[in-house]
């Protein structure tokens, strides 16, 4: 099925903004490493924390969201057919709302009116227009979610009794997760931050803002990760000449992510007052449960690799491994993502381990952690997707030469991220804090031991920016200059197509019901306590 030209245009618009954003935010990131390692000093008209806010907002909220919607529109159009005019229009409204939010947020940050970092913790108070910008971004995604979900429902109506396409199912599951997760941040922005920033209310309940933020903040990382899992489950097997290991297992792991990635936000608040130890521990337990679907995924993927490698004649215990297409960037990049996810996931388990969190909380270890997860695993998988999806949408092909540059780009990214995030992890264990401009601390002995690691951040950051420049050059070539042709949109078939996928996996009401029940159990009493026994609120501070 060919993707309708109008749908391709909608998808491409999202990808273009995503690629521009990651390049810009990457440069800001490099500046940060150069300042922290004391290689440069910033001019007086710009503040380090402004750059940090820009880097965080653009990477975490802008790049990821645009990329994911670009990817979803293409995947859904490919697997379920073209969008209706109404759905496509909703997609465009979503795009312009997102873009309006992006421009407004960028303006506020550039004017130094929102130097509150991307977590915007109260009672630091940004301009109300910054919070409006965040609201626009989220409302924009609701229009996009409407387009995707209503296309999926239409397909079900058109194909009664049939199993839905796996790609569309996964996109819908990810958006269900997103819709439930954003309730928290929408509530905080609309009912707490906006009235307070406009001066309609004098004070704000700080503990409540943090709780609502992290109710959203943790599933946010799964919103980034699940599209990468889509590529791993459905696209990578096709690229290596294999099949989807198990359709049922893939759907079930997505369901588990919906259930267990939301009622776990307290593991970001383990060192805070105002939340009882027992409630924190309860959410730590739920956090551990979310490890299981990732381990299921790991098994399924490596089985797929082994089966495909053996079919190509790989012998012995590891002979199949050599038969994998290492010279194909469409495989190498997502594979790097999987490989990086092994240490990244292990680090995540450490962070969530209740008392162990005390050693790493707010040190640069945490920064290292989310740089190898979202900046490593997720970003490098997204690069791998870009290399075939852009030429596919533009009616061009991924040439040998661009594939080769892509390989260099991928390796450079992995090496740069490896150097930077290893140095971050290690110096975090030595006490080096995150989110700070300078760590000289009057030449204190402990602080001076961090200097060498900060130099390594700068080296890693430089490699990452070189890699990004290569990436954007290749993408421009693929979009506008590569030879015309038909680049494959890889969708693998099932290994056992006869295996029935049970209907309960598509029973969204059931899963949404269970997740709300879990959220209710994990959050109701602590939130009632935070509201009913709240201390007098805080007025806003602009300390930048």
């Amino acid at each position, binding site marked *: 099925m060919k993707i309708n030209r109008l749908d391709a245009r909608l998808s491409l618009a999202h990808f273009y903004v995503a690629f521009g954003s990651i390049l810009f935010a990457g440069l800001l990131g490099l500046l940060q490493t150069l300042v922290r390692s004391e290689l440069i000093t910033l001019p007086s008209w710009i503040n380090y*924390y402004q750059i940090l806010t820009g880097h965080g907002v653009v990477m975490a909220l802008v790049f990821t969201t645009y990329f994911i919607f670009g990817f979803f529109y293409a995947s859904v159009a490919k697997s379920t057919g073209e969008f209706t005019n109404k759905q496509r229009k909703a997609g465009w409204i979503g795009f312009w709302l997102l873009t309006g939010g992006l421009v407004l947020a960028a303006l506020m940050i550039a004017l130094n009116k929102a130097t509150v970092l991307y977590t915007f*913790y109260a009672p630091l108070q940004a301009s109300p227009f910054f919070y409006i910008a965040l609201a626009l971004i989220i409302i924009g995604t609701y229009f996009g979610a409407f387009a995707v979900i209503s296309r999926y429902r239409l397909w079900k109506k058109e194909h009664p009794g049939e199993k839905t396409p796996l790609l569309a199912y996964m996109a819908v599951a990810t958006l269900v997760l997103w819709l439930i997760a954003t309730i928290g941040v929408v509530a905080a922005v609309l009912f707490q931050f906006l009235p307070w920033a406009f001066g309609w209310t004098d004070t704000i309940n700080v503990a409540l803002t943090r709780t609502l933020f992290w109710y959203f903040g943790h599933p946010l990382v799964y919103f980034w990760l699940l599209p990468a899992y889509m590529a791993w489950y459905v696209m990578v097997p096709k690229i290596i000449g294999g099949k989807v290991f198990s359709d049922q297992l893939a759907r079930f792991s997505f369901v588990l992510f919906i259930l267990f990635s939301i009622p776990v936000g307290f593991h970001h608040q383990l*060192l805070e007052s105002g939340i009882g130890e027992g409630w924190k521990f309860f959410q730590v337990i739920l956090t551990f449960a979310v490890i299981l679907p990732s381990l299921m995924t790991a098994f399924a993927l490596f089985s797929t690799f082994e089966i495909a490698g053996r079919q190509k004649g790989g012998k012995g215990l590891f002979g199949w491994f050599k038969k994998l297409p290492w010279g194909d960037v469409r495989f190498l990049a997502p594979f790097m993502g999987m490989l990086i996810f092994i240490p990244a996931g292990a680090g995540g388990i450490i962070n969530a381990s*209740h*008392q162990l969190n005390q050693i790493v909380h707010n040190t640069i270890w945490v920064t290292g952690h989310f740089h190898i997860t979202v900046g490593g695993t997720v970003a490098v998988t997204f690069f791998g997707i870009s290399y075939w999806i852009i030429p596919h949408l533009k009616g061009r092909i991924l040439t040998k030469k661009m594939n080769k540059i892509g390989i260099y780009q991928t390796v450079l990214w992995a090496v740069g991220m490896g150097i930077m995030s290893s140095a971050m992890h290690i110096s975090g264990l*030595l006490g080096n804090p995150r989110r700070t401009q300078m760590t000289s*601390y009057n030449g204190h002995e*402990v602080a001076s031991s961090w200097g060498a690691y900060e130099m390594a951040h700068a080296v890693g950051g430089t490699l990452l920016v070189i890699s990004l420049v290569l990436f954007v050059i290749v993408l421009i070539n693929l979009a506008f200059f590569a030879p015309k042709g038909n680049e494959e949109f890889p969708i693998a078939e099932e290994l056992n197509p006869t295996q029935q996928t049970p209907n309960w996996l598509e029973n969204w009401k059931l899963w949404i019901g269970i997740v709300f029940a879990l959220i209710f159990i994990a959050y109701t009493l602590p939130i009632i306590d935070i509201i009913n026994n709240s201390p007098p609120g805080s007025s806003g501070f602009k300390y930048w």
Partner: protein
Amino acid sequence: MLKHEKIWLTVSSVMIIGFMIATGIQTFAFGMGPPSETERVDPQKVDEHEVFSEPGVYEVGENKYEVVMTLEIFSFNPGDIEIPAGSEVTFKMTSKDVTHGFQIAGTNVNAMVMPGYIQTITQTFDEPGEYLILCNEYCGSGHQLMATTITVV
């Protein structure tokens, strides 16, 4: 389901349950849970509070100290603390403005100090030396300057 898949999922589940049990025992049997004080204060009136109106280092028992501390941009009050080696020190803290972090580099002392809440954390200092206390939550443009020391003699 394949045999190998079953083995993998069993091993995974056992491992995860092991993590749950280990963190649970450490938290509830050994009292090693993270700082989770629930006592509240009025963030506007910290100076009038019965405890926080007089920040300082108090000896509360043999080799036991309590440090009553307020955090405010960009300083810890009291700063440059001195205590004898082998003392058990409980830090009792609150913020007078935004959320700050309280970390003593090279130890397990690490806690968030939010306006409106009291936070406590206890540490025994056996090794003499000058320890670095720093704020590890972004609190404004002078955040990187927010630091002091605790000297164990």
